[in-house]
C-alpha cells in the first residue's frame, strides 16, 4: 500500500461556517444606544431649610391632567416655554445671590430685558414645574426638554462669547480629552447659568 500523502484540510467550507455565525450575530444584534434626558434628583433631607424666595424669581409652570399648560397663570403652548424660560432666566433685573461673603453682583453677561418684575439673576431664577398625576409622560418630557433647551441655548450663547466655541463642542472636547482647563470652562458656564428646577408635590 502506498503511503498516503498528508493531505490538507479542505478550507472551502470555512466561509460557510463563518457565514452561519455571521448571520446569527446579525440577527441577535441590537445596536440601540440608550439616550435620554439626564436629571439629578434632589437629596432628601429631614429638615427643610427655611428660605424666602421672591415671587418674581420663580417661573411657575403648571401642567394639568388634560395636558394643558399654564405659565405664570397664563395659557401657553409647549413650544413657547423655551422662549419664556430664556427671557425669565436671562432677565438679570437685580443682584445675584451673595456668595463667599461678597455682596450680590448685577448680571453682567445677561442679555435680558432687565425687567424689575422678572428674575433678579440667573443664579436666583428658579423654574417650578408642577404636574398633575394624570399628566401624560410624553407631555412632561416635552416640557422638561424645552427647559433643558433654554438652559443649553443660554450656556451656548455665553460659551460662544467667552470661548468662541459652542457649549456642545466644549462638552465633546471634554469627553475626548478631559483636561482641567476645559473642566474649568464648563464649570464656569454651568455656574453662570445653573439649572435650578423644582418639582413640587403633584396636584391631585
Amino acid at each position, binding site marked *: 500500500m502506498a503511503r498516503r500523502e498528508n493531505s490538507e484540510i479542505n478550507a472551502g467550507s470555512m466561509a460557510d461556517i*463563518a457565514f452561519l455565525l455571521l448571520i446569527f*450575530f446579525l440577527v441577535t444584534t*441590537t445596536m440601540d444606544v440608550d*439616550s435620554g434626558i*439626564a436629571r439629578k434628583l434632589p437629596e432628601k433631607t429631614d429638615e427643610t431649610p427655611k428660605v424666602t424666595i421672591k415671587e418674581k424669581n420663580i417661573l411657575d409652570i403648571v401642567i394639568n391632567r388634560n*395636558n394643558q399648560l399654564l405659565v405664570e397663570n397664563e395659557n401657553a403652548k409647549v413650544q413657547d416655554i423655551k422662549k419664556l424660560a430664556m427671557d425669565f432666566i436671562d432677565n438679570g433685573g437685580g443682584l445675584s445671590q451673595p456668595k463667599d461673603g461678597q455682596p450680590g453682583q448685577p448680571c453682567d453677561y445677561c442679555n435680558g430685558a432687565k425687567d424689575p418684575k422678572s428674575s433678579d439673576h440667573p443664579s436666583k431664577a428658579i423654574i417650578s414645574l408642577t404636574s398633575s398625576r*394624570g399628566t401624560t*409622560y410624553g*407631555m412632561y418630557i416635552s416640557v422638561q426638554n424645552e427647559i433643558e433647551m433654554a438652559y443649553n441655548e443660554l450656556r451656548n450663547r455665553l460659551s460662544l462669547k467667552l470661548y468662541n466655541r459652542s457649549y456642545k463642542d466644549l462638552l465633546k472636547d471634554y469627553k475626548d480629552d478631559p483636561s482641567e482647563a476645559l473642566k474649568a470652562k464648563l464649570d464656569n458656564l454651568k455656574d453662570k447659568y445653573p439649572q435650578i428646577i423644582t418639582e413640587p408635590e403633584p396636584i391631585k
Partner: protein
Amino acid sequence: MSKFTKKKKGLPGISTASLPDIVFMLLFFFMVSTTMRQTDLMIKKPSLPTASEVKKLEHKSLVSTIYIGKSKDSRIEGDKIQVNDKIIDVKDVISFILSERAQRKEEEVKYMTTSIKADKNANVGTILDIKEQLRDINALKVSFSTTKGTDFSKNYQ
C-alpha cells in the same frame, strides 16, 4: 516555436480565497458590538417620547433600567412597572435598586444611573412615585429614556 503558440484563454475565475477573511472580519465586528437582550418585556413595549436635548448613557454596566407601560392584557388598566423579568409594585423599586447595588463594586455605586423607560402615555404620577422611592435610597442619577428627534408633536395628543 512553442513560445508563440497561443494558450487557450478562458475567463479566470474570481478568487474566493479571501472570502472567509472578509466574512470573519464582519463576524468579529458583530460579535463585539452585540448585546444580547437580557430582559423579555412582559408589558407592552413602551413607545418612548421624543426629545432633542438628550445625553448618551455611558457605562452600560452601571445602568439599571425600569420599564413603565401598559399591561399586554388590554383589560388591565393602569401603568405597570417592570424590572428584570418581573412586574413589581412601586414600593419594590427600593429593593430592586439595592439588589442592583449589591452586584456592583462599592466604589462604582455612586456612578450608577437609573434609566426610566416609560411609555409616553404613562401617568406622571407613576414616574413621580418612582422618583420619590429613588430619592429615599439616594439613587439620585436618573435618565429619562427618550428617542432623539425634533418632532415632538407625537409626545402629546
